[in-house]
Every structure is written in structure tokens, then in C-alpha cells.
């Protein structure tokens, strides 16, 4: 590499470096989607941190599992399968309206966006209610033993994501309903993107909490 210019200078400069505009960017769009928006990257960053949190909980689950000769521990019933499975199915179903409102948002199609957003909100509220029921489906209180604590930790950690996503969708739906700022469309699409992640990470958690105790 050849280096010229300032490198030879012994002392610095007083004045700032003059800037000479050579390109005009005023015709670049200000509403873009997907990985072209910073919010997509921000959401992805939070996903990484949340995935790490969940992985810490799941790792703790398997670590504790090694400490037991029988799993779940003696006199601790297995978790129910019915409610969690329904909840899982509802969660996966909630992705359909999410996909649809994200698609509509990219077309700036307000009626379709709103319609599918409200459907998504309803489905996610049902999923949240089912998740609350899942805590009793675990059939054990969090303070009974370490197995109970880690199982609760996994379900609860994901519950916070579900709750956050539900509330976020609700909030966006209300904003879109009442205001409709154009620059919110990318955020709406982002919201669906987050939902995909939220449902995807639940699947290994579901397997861990509800199926693994039946298998080991």
C-alpha cells in the first residue's frame, strides 16, 4: 500500500478537513424493508441475546437432569402434554396471520395489514393464555426441586418473549389503526419477523420440557 499525504506531516492541522460533495443521495428511499433497515439488525441482535438466554436455561435443564437418577425426580409427576401441545399448535398457527400482515405491510396495503394484525393479536392472546395454563400443566411448583425450577425457568423465559411479542403486535395494531404513519410499515414487518423467531425457539424448549422427561 502506498501512503501519501498527511502521513509525512509532523504536526497536526488546526482546521477541519473540507468536504466536497460529489454524490447526491436525496433520491434514495427512506422506507425500506428487511435487512436494509437498521431495525431488522437491531431485532436480530436482541434475538441473539434472547436465544443465548434461552440456551442458558435449556443448558441448565440438561445439567440438572444429570444429577437425578430418575427423571423427573421421585414423587414428581410428569408434565401434562395436552395443553402445551395445543399451545404449540396455536403458536405455530399464529405465524399465518403474521406472515400475511407482513406481506401486506410491504405492499403498504393498510386494510389487509390491519385485518391480519388484529387476527394475529387475537391468536397470540390465546397463545399467551394457554401459556399461563402451561404453568399448571407442569404439575409441579417452581420451588419443589431443581427439576421444577429449571422447567419453570425455560417456560417462563420464553413466556416473557411471547408476552413481549404479543404486546408489541397489539401496540403496533393500535398505532396502525389510529395513526398510520408510513414509516411504521417496516416496523410492522419486523414484528412478524420477530414472531417467527419466537415460535422457532420455542420448539426445542417444548421438546426439552415436555418430551425429554418422557424419554429419559
Amino acid at each position, binding site marked *: *500500500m*502506498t*501512503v501519501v499525504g498527511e*502521513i*509525512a506531516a509532523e504536526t497536526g492541522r488546526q482546521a477541519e478537513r473540507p468536504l466536497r460533495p460529489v454524490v447526491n443521495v436525496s433520491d434514495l428511499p427512506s422506507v425500506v424493508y428487511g435487512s436494509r433497515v437498521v431495525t431488522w439488525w437491531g431485532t436480530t441482535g436482541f434475538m441473539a441475546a434472547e436465544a443465548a438466554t434461552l440456551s442458558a436455561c435449556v443448558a441448565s435443564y440438561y445439567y440438572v437432569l444429570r444429577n437425578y437418577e430418575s427423571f423427573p425426580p421421585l414423587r414428581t409427576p410428569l408434565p401434562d402434554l395436552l395443553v402445551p401441545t395445543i399451545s404449540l399448535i396455536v403458536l405455530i398457527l399464529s405465524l399465518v396471520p403474521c406472515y400475511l400482515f407482513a406481506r401486506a405491510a410491504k405492499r403498504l396495503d393498510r386494510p389487509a395489514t390491519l385485518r391480519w394484525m388484529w387476527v394475529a393479536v387475537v391468536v397470540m392472546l390465546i397463545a399467551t393464555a394457554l401459556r399461563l395454563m402451561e404453568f399448571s400443566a407442569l404439575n409441579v411448583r417452581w420451588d419443589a426441586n431443581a427439576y421444577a425450577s429449571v422447567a419453570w425457568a425455560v417456560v417462563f423465559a420464553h413466556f416473557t418473549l411471547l408476552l413481549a411479542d404479543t404486546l408489541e403486535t397489539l401496540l403496533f395494531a393500535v398505532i396502525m389503526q389510529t395513526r398510520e404513519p408510513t414509516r411504521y410499515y417496516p416496523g410492522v414487518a419486523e414484528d412478524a419477523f420477530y414472531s417467527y423467531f419466537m415460535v422457532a425457539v420455542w420448539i426445542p424448549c417444548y421438546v426439552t420440557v415436555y418430551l425429554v422427561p418422557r424419554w429419559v
Partner: protein
Amino acid sequence: MTWAGSIFDTAGTPAERIARLAWFLIIVSAVTYLLVLVATGIAIRRARARRTRGDLADTRPETAKRLTRNVAIATIATTLILLVYVTATALTGKAIAWPLNARQPLTIEVTGYQWWWQFRYRDSVPSNWLTTSNELHIPVGRPVRVILLSNDVIHSFWIPELHGKQDLIPGHRNTTWIQADRPGVWKAHCAEFCGHQHAKMQFDVVAESPAQFDQWYRRQLASALPPTDSAAKRGHDVFVQRTCIMCHSINGTEAGSNVGPELTHIASRPSIAAGSLPNTRVNLGRWILNPQLIKPGVRMPPNALSPADMNALLDYLETLK
């Protein structure tokens, strides 16, 4: 180098091997460090000279090539040193593992308490199991298997002269081993922070000839003799009627609590208060009167004893050889 109490003051094979490895690593590190400093120094000198000459920074491709070569050489050298390092570590690791062919090993169960040590010598005959506190005797030349348990929080068992440390973790059964190759008396410290008196959670290690060890063992197995003179009798009564009995035990008396260290042969120990004070009458008196002045936060409370009671108690404790 034998620096008393240091990891180089070795008295057993594992410590010896580790010390050798440590020396090796220290020398390698020192040489590496010197090389880095020399390289930096030369770099600075050369560059200064260039500045004095008024030349520009040297960014010619041929210089870059030479520098790349030098950096590559340094990197390869580092890698080679590290290979040696990993190999030496692995070999030493093998050398300090529990010798599977060990004959007649002694097994001692160590339990950590906040802030003292209990040692239980296992024997094939259950009636020969021996429990002592804060004092570990081992026979020279005989491998000792050490089982590490904890009653409350994590402590760490460490006799620098014999071996590296291992933690005592509640709910886990950790093990290590030691073997003294020469007689000696050493002080060992708890090495994992364990609360207020971590600093003064110590014990005495006595490595002695097998004959002496057997003698010590037999004497420790015996119950305390009943007090003979009147002062000691009164001291015994103080012990069992006042606060002492709530926590301490003396075999052969009705004192049998296991909250604090057992005291059956307290008078034969070199130190009291988990290795914090030499075992003298004055120290013992000070300690009993108010342990909180000597080890603030220790679980033993101040004891309200009249001077007469205290003297009698000390008389009695001094008979517990």
C-alpha cells in the same frame, strides 16, 4: 529454592513435579518476555533513528515482506513453545494422578465447616475410625487418599508442600491425594473464599514416621480420661453445664455435640482456633473469653465465665492430652 511455605518448598511427589513444571514455565515465560521487550526496544531505536534522519515511515513492499516473514517466524516460535507447554502440562498431569498401584493407602475424609476442618480417618475396622479437628497427621511415605466434603459452603483443601488444591463442594464428593516424602510440620490454608473467617481457616499438617503416626493414632483413639484433681473436676463441670457443651464434644464425657470442633485431645494440638493461635494457656483463655476479638464473625460466642470457672476450665482442658 526452598522458600518456606511456598509451592517450591516441596515435600511430596505431586508438589515436586508441579514445582518442576512451574520453574520450567517461569523460565520460558521470562525468556519470552525478554525477547518481546528486546524486540520492542530495537523497534523503538530503529524508528527513532529514522526520525532523526528525517526519513518517512518505511512502507515499501520489500520491508513489508521482511516484516511479514519476521512476524510469521515469531508466530511459529510461539506455537512451538505452546506445543511444548501443552505437552509438558499433559505429562505432569499424568505424573501427579493418583497412583493406581498404591499399596496400603490411608483414606481420610475431610469435611469443611465455616471456619474449621474435620478429619475422619477411615479404617477397615469401624471402631478404629478416628475423628480429629484442625490437625492432620500423616505417615511419611504412605499415599493418602483424601475425600473432600463440605458441610456448608465451598472450601478448598491445600497443602502447598504436598499437592495443589482441590475444592470441597457441598453435594459433591471431590478427591485428591497426598504423600509426604519427608517429615515436617506445615500450615495449610483454606483456599476458596468462604466468608468472614476465610483468612483464619487453617490447619496444621504433621508428617511423621509411620511408628510415630501409629502412636499418635492410638492415643487419639482413646477417650478422654476422667478428671482427677478437684480443679479439673470443676472445669469438667463447667464444660458440661455451661455454654461449651452446646457445640463441642469430648469423647468419654456427656459432651457430644458436633457443631464445633471436637476437643477430646485438645491439649495435644499445636494450635487452637483453626490454626490461628499457638496452643498456650493464655491464648486458650483469651479465645474462650471472647473469640470475636480474635476472629470476628467466627461462630463461637463470647463466654461469660467467672475467673475461677475459667481457670478450672483451662485446668481441665489442659488435661486433655
